[in-house]
């Protein structure tokens, strides 16, 4: 189908352009992200939202059915990477330099957590990301994050 829109969404205009909705199933199916069961939820030109499903073996305490904070860091790190590739329009090797997570409150019992990350600035060498995690209502986040990522295109051995 021909794309007639004047402002096509990322991924629609160029089949080679990085499209998180198509790349996510592959990127999230193995390794740590696969173990956590991360799922793609949505994206825009510079943001991606992923879901971390609730799971009994990811709890932060034995007697509380609340997801631990550790998996939320992973969720936000992964959403950050995807939003950077989305804004770059391509899949380039990047490394997390610095990631800060401020926890506003615990997630609700048995609630999945959603991670929304936005790449607000991209330079030749660095990508700056901010984002938040929520458990259903984006206006009542469980955490906010800020991160800096580095492009490692040339020689990943030096990272």
């Amino acid at each position, binding site marked *: 189908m021909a794309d007639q829109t004047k402002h096509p969404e990322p991924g629609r205009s160029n089949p080679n352009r990085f499209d998180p909705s198509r790349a996510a199933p592959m990127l999230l199916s193995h390794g740590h992200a696969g173990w956590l069961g991360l799922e793609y939820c949505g994206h825009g030109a510079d943001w991606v939202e992923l879901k971390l499903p609730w799971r009994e073996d990811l709890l932060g305490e034995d007697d509380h059915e609340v997801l*631990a904070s550790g998996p939320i860091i992973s969720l936000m790190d992964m959403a950050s990477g995807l939003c950077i590739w989305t804004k770059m329009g391509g899949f380039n090797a990047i*490394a997390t330099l610095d990631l800060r997570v401020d926890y506003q409150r615990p997630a609700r019992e048995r609630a999945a957590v959603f991670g929304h990350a936005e790449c607000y600035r991209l330079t030749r060498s660095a990508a700056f990301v901010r984002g938040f995690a929520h458990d259903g209502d984006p206006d009542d986040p469980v955490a906010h994050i800020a991160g800096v990522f580095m492009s490692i295109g040339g020689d990943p051995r030096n*990272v």
Partner: protein
Amino acid sequence: MSDAGKAGLTPYARSLGITVHDEEHGAPVLMFDFGGEVEGRPGHLHGGATSGLLETAAYAILRNELARLGRKHRLKPINITVQFLSAGKQRPTYAKGRITKLGRRNANIAVEAWQDDRDRPIATAIMNIFMTDEDR
């Protein structure tokens, strides 16, 4: 891995394969082996898994110290800032925390994670934790 090595760890930490490797002057040294659960880009540690190990080590030393002092609290994370210094390889990863401030209501903890060479950490973190009354 023996259950004893997982005592006091959260369901998440046990599930990720974190165990207590050693204890040095009251500071637990935690570790996990390399495997699919902690892999990011092929052959390397995922930053999120490393962060989970750092955070677990921060809680472990704080719980140890509070137990030593006979204090009972529910711990709530305020924030964590992680610095990633080098890519984690397909090797065991260790982490140990140090309490930089222990107050009545909050604690500040510095944590380092390393693989082969302890003097070259692969990641460090600073974590602030609130300590509330246990029944709250």
